[in-house]
């Protein structure tokens, strides 16, 4: 009987932890001047890997990311790119230290992300759905 109660308590704890765990509804955002409203997952992955450097009209892509250990960045990598954050870091390191590319611009907070994407032409980034505003364009991922 005690064992059953203990098991029940444990289940309750696990359940409440699961409910407390934040749900990251991540949205891909771009500067309003960006000429598209949707993007394929392959193209998105290539843009965040700093290998696809231009939009369909030839305008440069300016990529903004949060730090590697930021929970939203981790959720974004998993949900939107299906990559582990360390894979992106490896790709950027290779480009940066071999002279064949550049790293994305790192911003410290979601507020910075939102304002940077809003004011930089060709900007691409991501944000929590609850933080969205009209200064940026939402890109749907096909």
């Amino acid at each position, binding site marked *: 009987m005690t064992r059953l109660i203990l098991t029940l308590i444990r289940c309750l704890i696990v359940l409440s932890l699961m409910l407390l765990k934040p749900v990251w509804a991540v949205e891909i955002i771009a500067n309003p001047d960006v000429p598209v409203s949707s993007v*394929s997952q*392959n*193209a998105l*992955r*290539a843009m965040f890997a700093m*290998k*696809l*450097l*231009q939009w*369909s009209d*030839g305008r*440069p*892509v300016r990529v903004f990311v949060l*730090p*590697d*250990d930021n929970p939203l960045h981790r959720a974004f990598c998993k949900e939107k*790119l*299906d*990559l*582990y954050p*360390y*894979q992106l870091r*490896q*790709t950027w*390191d*290779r480009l*940066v*230290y*071999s*002279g*064949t*590319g*550049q*790293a994305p611009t790192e911003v410290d907070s979601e507020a910075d992300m939102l304002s940077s994407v809003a004011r930089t032409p060709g900007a691409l980034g991501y944000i929590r759905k609850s933080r969205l505003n009209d200064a940026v364009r939402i890109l749907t991922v096909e």
Partner: protein
Amino acid sequence: MKRAIFQLGTLLMLACISTATRAMDNLPDGVQLHGFASQSLISTDHNNFFGQTQDSASLGFTELGANISWRINPKVQMSAQAISRRAGETDNGTPRLDYATLDLTAYADETSRYGLYLGKIKNPYGLYNETRDVAFARPSILLPQSIYFDRLRNFSLASPGISLYSQNRLAVGDLSMQISAVRPNASDEESERTFLGKSQPGSIDSKTSYIGRLLLEPDNSRLKLALTGVQINAQYQPGGGDALQAGVIDFRSWILSAQYNAENWVLTSEYARRRIVETGFGPFFLNGTTYGTSYYVQGAYTLSPRWSVLARYDYSVADDADKDGIKFQSKSGLPAYSRFAQDWTAGVTYNASRSWQLRGEYHHVDGTFWLPYGDNTNPASTARYWNMWLLQAAYRF
């Protein structure tokens, strides 16, 4: 005195780096500055590795580097990197240009990109060559010497030339190709001793050489499969009173690389087969063809966001027809164990922050195939079985 000058130089460079870091926010659009620094402490029970390490500890291994890149537009980028590397007697820290590359994209769309690199270019070789001096981009303090042979690092690192590249996003995964025509640097002491057995009065001049790599990354780059081909041509220029004649070296190598990236672990293996043809050196040299083999198997496991561990087995043999080196010993009088090496490695990494990393590493080695000549000038005083302990602190921005 020399040490004092070096330390002063290091401090100045670090001061420049930190100033640059502070100035980074004010850089013009499209310009980026990055850099790295590492200092290692190395100790061995026998043989010397990057300094006087036997029964002692040496700070003889230091890496410093800084680079600037300017993305002028999506089709043009200019980049250059300077490095200073101290590695015992094999590298004295003299700053040098690591690469200076102009990247011209000829065509790009959503699924492909074609272009060329001009200038001094990092050689596309295996999985780690292009970033082998950056501690953060390596899995361990020392790269597996079987494939990333430090004796031939100048030879394989970067070379002046031209390189064509293509990148295609296919249904099976990303496919990238790069092929370079280069003139590698083979005129240093370690290369000379590797190819010619000992320091000779003349020098090795490279001719046009080729290196190419095909890289396929299925399953969202979780799997990486690469095939590298190398063909290096060089000619010996005899010096005054030289017993050797103007011989020719034809070095060819194939490297197969495979890596699997899971959420918490990475499994990596690379296998190489080399062929060295040496002809025309005259009667006082062992002209002929030698086949050699190298491979390693490596596993890394992430314990937590800060801690990870690594284990590796690394094997190389100079001559497949003389695996235990006995024939070589009877002909040359040099130790048989200098013709092979088996290295069992265990390592631990602590990522203190995004910019700071600490590593510890242990090597148990059977053989001295990749032991630096410069640090071990008398082959008779080397030992077949030896152990090495390393600690490294690394910084990057």
